């Protein structure tokens, strides 16, 4: 048995959630004031994910903003950002254009979120 303490992001209450875990199985969630806290806690302790947003360098100077097309595992954020830091793309880049097919081995592409020169 182990315990995880989280802050709920469902609303400004920011309830402190205690999650009791048995390995990967959630035994109980306490501290939440509403159902959203329970749902959030279960997802956050078993499969936390985030959409990563950053910029990539352009060959002719400057940067273009990008995001992972879907959310990726939280543990892969730094690997994803590191990969994108190495990347140099040739402009002009269009909004929605794929700049990297598969980030950090997640199978999820990275797309531009703005236009570049």
């Amino acid at each position, binding site marked *: 048995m182990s315990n995880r303490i*989280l*802050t*709920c*992001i*469902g*609303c*400004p*209450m*920011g309830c402190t959630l205690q999650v009791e875990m048995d390995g990967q199985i959630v035994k109980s969630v306490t501290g939440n*004031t*509403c159902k959203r806290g329970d749902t959030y806690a279960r997802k956050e302790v078993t499969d936390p994910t*985030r*959409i*990563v*947003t*950053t*910029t990539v*360098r352009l060959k002719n*100077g*400057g*940067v273009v*903003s990008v*995001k992972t097309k879907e959310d990726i595992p*939280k543990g892969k*954020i730094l690997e994803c*950002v590191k990969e994108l*830091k190495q990347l140099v793309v040739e402009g002009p880049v269009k*909004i929605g254009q794929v700049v990297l097919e598969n980030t950090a081995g997640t199978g999820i592409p990275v797309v531009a*979120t*703005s236009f570049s020169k």
Partner: protein
Amino acid sequence: MKQCDLVIVGGGPAGLAAAIAAKKNGINDILIVERDEKLGGILNQCIHNGFGLHTFHEELTGPEYAYRFIQMAEELEIPYMTGSMVLDITPEKKLTVINRTEGVMEIQAKSVILAMGCRERPRGALNIPGYRPMGIYSAGTAQRLVNVDGFLPGKEVVILGSGDIGLIMARRMTLEGAKVKVVAELMPYSGGLKRNIVQCLDDFGIPLKLSHTVVEIKGKQKLEGVTLARVDEHNRPIPGTEEYYACDTLLLSCGLIPENELSREMGIAMNPVTNGPVVDESLETSIPGVFVCGNVLHVHDLVDFVSEEAAVAGRNAADYIRGNMEEKKSQGIPVETEGGIRYSVPSVVEPERMHEPVKVRFRVGNVYTNCYISLYLDDIRIQRKKRQIVTPGEMEEMVLKKEFFQEYGRPEKIRIVLEQAKQDDREVNGNE
């Protein structure tokens, strides 16, 4: 002199949504004047996601949200001028505009929509003692440097203020390889969204120190470090609580101020609480035909509400230009706020001019739990909403309908009141 039915000052989310609404309501002779090189305003540098959940039911980044509106404006063939700044507007709605190619020009408008947005509170307004070395930026300036220009302003960072831009920049600087040592917040609570505290600070192990401020800045030419101290309930630093942080960058995220130089010079009546113009139900200012929307009216937390508010201003400007707007016969009914609510927008309502339900938006001045937000016409309660919590960082709203006035008559005043719920009253958030 160039004539134009509607001139919109500012091509950010407010200006774009206002223009689109005016065009859809039959106004063709529109001009958006934007100071920056492209449309989209501050959204262009807000590359994080979380925009558009209300409007498009999906999570977009700032530039993507802006692009949806820019596309709409282009499809509707709304004329705009970038790299152009409005220098002056007369009460008769004559605008002086300047740009690099055409120099100074004058435009006579029938109606004007003010959508200039807001500006960050600078260091000079914060009374931070110490030298003035390089390395101190407002969070939004750093955001532009990193996200648009591609420069990282520093490697070791302290952030003062836990507004959303400060929190977002804590994560952004971390992802770019900087070490964010601490975020200090003067108030005992953060002004930022919980989601940002968790996903921008907790995810990266960045500490948030509430009730703390910067009491000393070290470094003459370049910033070398800052000293933080805990503050008491009167926001005075407590001696003996000082802690020194070596850093080369200090970011300030200490509030936003509507950018109303033009409005003030026009002689528009201002609201000292919001620092924005006083408006009525039509978002019309004290000068007939001059409307206002977005962060220049009052600072919003969600762009979706800016777009919605701006569309109201756009529709009303269209009505004004086509002569479909009833003239004000009276001062209107004042909207008064009580029990910890700081202000409301609009602050005056004329039911006869209401063509659609009016959203009254407001903020509280402190954190309150287990309470009701109630709407009264004089002493009759029309509506109340239960809230587990209300905070200064989250704007609230009440919807005023014309039927209320038909049913209860014309009141002396409309009151929005924050009321404490009974201790055992634990029903969840909702309308009654």
